[in-house]
């Protein structure tokens, strides 16, 4: 066996070719990228359809119906077929009926989301503007108290400015409202910049990981 046989390990070799083909997009969309793009979608869809059977329909529909004998699951078949009404003029409305039920189910989960996910954030936004008692022996006690108040006041002001920026129907005629809304937008830009800056490392780490895959796992130039 050749000393370079590791280059031909099917998983790494195929993986490396796939990686290089995708990376070629950044220079120019090309024939090889196109082939791999289509292969990617093909593999993904093949896998999606298979998992729809193996993870959903087989364990949640076929097995209960056929193996456990819960015969009523058969009734879901004509209901599911209603989706395909969109392909005919006559039955198109039936698909809307089924979609309607799904819309309803999706819509009302908002109440739990509002109470469970959102309201805690409202409560957490009550920021005290009075500092807590100083920690004993803190040489910077007044500085800490000062920054506590300033930061909390800033929190309330930023929150208010951003909220006012997002008022659509109230007339923004008064100078005060205009200025707060404008400030809100500027603060948003600063906040977005911060998000941008903090995301770069995570994204670059992914590229570094891919280069490491090519140089270490495949070519073994790096140890």
């Amino acid at each position, binding site marked *: 066996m050749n000393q370079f046989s590791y280059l*031909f390990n099917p998983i790494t070799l195929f993986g490396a070719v*796939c*990686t290089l083909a*995708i990376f070629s997009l*950044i220079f120019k969309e090309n024939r090889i990228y*196109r082939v791999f793009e289509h*292969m990617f*979608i093909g*593999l*993904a869809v*093949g896998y*999606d*359809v*298979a998992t*729809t059977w193996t993870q959903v329909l087989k364990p*949640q529909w076929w097995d209960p119906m056929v193996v456990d*004998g819960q015969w009523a699951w058969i009734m*879901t078949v004509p209901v*599911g077929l209603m*989706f*395909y009404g969109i*392909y005919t003029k006559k*039955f*198109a*409305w*039936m698909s809307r*009926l089924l979609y*309607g*039920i799904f819309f*309803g*189910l*999706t*819509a*009302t989960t*908002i*109440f*739990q989301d*509002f109470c469970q996910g*959102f309201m805690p*954030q409202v409560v957490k936004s009550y920021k005290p503007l009075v500092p807590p008692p100083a920690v004993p022996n803190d040489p*910077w006690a007044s500085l800490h108290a000062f*920054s506590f108040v300033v930061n909390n006041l*800033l*929190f309330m002001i*930023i*929150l208010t400015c951003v*909220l006012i920026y997002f008022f659509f129907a109230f007339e923004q005629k008064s100078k005060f409202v205009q200025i707060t809304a404008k400030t809100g937008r*500027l*603060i948003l*830009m*600063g906040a977005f910049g*911060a998000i*941008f*800056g*903090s995301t*770069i*490392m995570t*994204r*670059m780490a*992914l590229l570094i990981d891919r280069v490491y895959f090519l140089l270490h796992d495949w070519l073994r130039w790096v140890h």
Partner: protein
Amino acid sequence: MHSFFAAIPHHGPEYFGKLIIGLLIVLAILGLLHAAPKQSRRAIIAVFTFLGGLFYFLEFFLPVDPKTNKNFLTGQQEFVAQLSAVIGAYAIGLGVVSLGQYHAKIISRKREGWGNSVVLVIAALIMFTFSILNEYHAKTVLFTDPFQHHTQDIHGVFLVLFEGGLAKLDAATFALIAFFIASASYRAFRIRSVESSLLMIAALIVMLASTTIGTALTNWLPTEGPQANFRIEHISEWLLTRLNSPAQRGIVFGLEVGALATSLRLWLSLERGAYFDAEV
């Protein structure tokens, strides 16, 4: 509901009889709905949408038994989730038809790039086949590997397709973002306006703070006391926690209220726009 779905021995005539009856019942109901006058269809859809939504609404708002922390609908949640997962899964055909139709047309008319469409279809068929086989016959030996002289089973082929193909394509595409983030920041970070300058300054500070060069810039400042606040890592931290978090919270307030209003319009069939205004 559960007793209706109750298991019965599944080989006797009773089982098959019930299967057929079940089908007939649903078809009869659908037939009746379809026979209803056309002008009432919109109302029928609205009623079903409302009833669908009523489930989660009542489940959340009906008082619960303090001992079990459940009301009479809580136990049904799992069933409703299973039912919508199953029915939702039937829709996979809509995707397959959409994709298949598009590529079949390209292949049959030998349009430019039809070879790619062939690749797509073959890849999909192979992946589908091996994913299914891998689930139920993973250990079946397919052939002897000519290079490595050991036998290759179905799971091995699946791994090449999944680990070598799908997972690597996925990771490589994810990593493309790194390139795009570089070109996007080069283009966007210009002192064109107050807004773009703010975006740029905040991003650069946060970036610098996580590098050696950046932290070295302000390393001469003390780590305690008022001046420490001006160390770049503290400015970055301040931007991320004191500026970013209230701003994000403000956005979330608006988004949540927007989602609440949109949900209500959908649930109560008050939504407007092509799909919702069209003749049915």
